[in-house]
């Protein structure tokens, strides 16, 4: 059963140094507040997982929380590069970042296998690409029925999955709607689950296309209103595209980035510590 906790308590209880942590969200419902709480609590050596790492991953990487990144597409959508991600891969700053990259379909199916309790999933893909030889979690298998050669991807079972949803009730049942990406699979694949929500409500009303996650597959629910900003939460607030454009300037330079993080995420504690 999910405990309703503060975000700081939930991150403190569920996310440990060295964990494999999936923070999912496909443009919509990105758990930015939770990612920034992980930064504030100074977690280190994390293996971070996401199909589409964006600004909050740039922040986690630039602040030195990540040892490894497992991903499909790492960019600032519609804007350009993730400069902290690039600096880590190209120049090893603030320290070298191991990477394991997949196609979206491949990484998606790793979650599907994890959620399904299977050791691997099968798909048509990877053959003929240089991705095939670059990751240990993709192999070739032969279909026992047709003899066809197909790609197998190893199940992914994160230590912790973190997602954001619109609402939870007081029992910790969670409801999300709109673009839900791979959130359900990432939750069901994980050992531990933290869900941040816009609000805790007395009663969850059924929604067309809504996805309900029962309280007994979740460990902690934390209220984090506005917790996806500058991403968005359908029904609550819109994506702030200007913040994504602005991030390009903030993140390009190491000092500008650190100053911004200190001011906006760490509450000035770095400036005090210097």
């Amino acid at each position, binding site marked *: 059963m999910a405990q309703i906790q503060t975000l700081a308590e939930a991150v403190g209880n569920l996310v440990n140094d060295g964990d494999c942590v999936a923070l999912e969200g496909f443009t919509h419902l990105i758990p930015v507040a939770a990612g920034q709480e992980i930064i504030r609590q100074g977690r280190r050596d994390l293996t971070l997982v996401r199909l589409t790492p964006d600004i909050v991953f740039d922040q986690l990487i630039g602040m030195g929380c990540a040892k490894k990144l497992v991903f499909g597409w790492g960019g600032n*959508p519609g804007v350009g590069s993730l400069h902290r991600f690039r600096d880590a891969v190209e120049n090893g700053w603030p320290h070298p970042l191991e990477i394991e990259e997949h196609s979206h379909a491949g990484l998606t199916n790793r979650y599907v296998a994890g959620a399904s309790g299977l050791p691997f999933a099968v798909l048509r893909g990877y053959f003929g690409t240089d991705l095939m030889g670059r990751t240990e979690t993709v192999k070739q298998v032969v279909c026992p029925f047709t003899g066809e050669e197909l790609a197998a991807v190893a199940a992914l079972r994160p230590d912790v999955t973190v997602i954001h949803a619109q609402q939870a009730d007081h029992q910790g049942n969670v409801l999300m709607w709109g673009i839900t990406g791979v959130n359900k699979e990432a939750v069901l694949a994980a050992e531990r689950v933290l869900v941040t929500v816009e609000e805790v409500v007395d009663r969850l009303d059924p929604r067309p296309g809504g996805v309900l996650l029962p309280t007994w597959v979740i460990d902690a629910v934390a209220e984090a209103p506005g917790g996806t900003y500058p991403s968005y939460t359908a029904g609550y607030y819109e994506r702030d595209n200007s913040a994504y454009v602005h991030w390009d300037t903030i993140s390009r330079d190491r000092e500008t980035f650190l100053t911004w993080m200190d001011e906006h995420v760490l509450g000035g504690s770095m400036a005090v510590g210097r």
Partner: protein
Amino acid sequence: MTATSTARGEQSIEYSPDDMMIAAAARALRGYRVCFVGIGLPSTAANLARATHSPDLVLVYESGTIGAKPTRLPLSIGDGELAETADAVVSVPEIFNYWVQGGRIDVGFLGAAQMDRFANLNSTTIGDYEHPAVRLPGAGGAPEIAASCKEVIVLIRQSHRTFVERLDFRTTVGFGEGPDDRRRWGLRGSGPTLVITDLGLLRPDPVTRELTMTALHPGVEIDQARAATPWELRVAEQLTTTEPLSEEELRGLRDLQATQDHG
């Protein structure tokens, strides 16, 4: 960016090479039913097609929005506008497993940082993989779009930076090294059937699958295309010229661009 000017009666229409690429891409969608759309030029082109000749074109974005009908151009593939206007919003596993891999998409649009003569694409790294000069975003949906959409259209500018003899990383398969590779690798779609550049159009040779320049945009000479290509460019015997942008296309395009949320 140089503007091209074409005189039409008393009208003179000014547009950029990017406008020409977008218009050519929009025209190429005529007759298709379902299009898998990436952000940027492909999204603009697909929405221009909807605004002009193909109002019923079904736009599918990888965020899971099927039949999106955005009234303003989105900045990302998952803007709320796409979900709100879609016929259906499905999960990412569904999009890739049932809709793309299931062979339900007629045509996919792709871009890349590099392309070779067999329309293989690189969107991963420039330089050595372990120590890249430039770390690009990576594969995203491209490999499976190229594998399983019935056809693929590539949008890429033509220069020695983008057209390369050898890719630094093969992220996405066009035709591999020749005519047999797609079948050998079990890729069910036909692969790239059209490449649209700022200089003109290329199509794969029906036998060898090597890209062949089949059309030039107005005002472009074949020597420019040759000079922009590091290998010996194959040119069709019947080289044609694409139609310049019509007033209707340009008006449609400017109307769309006025809706773009640049942030």
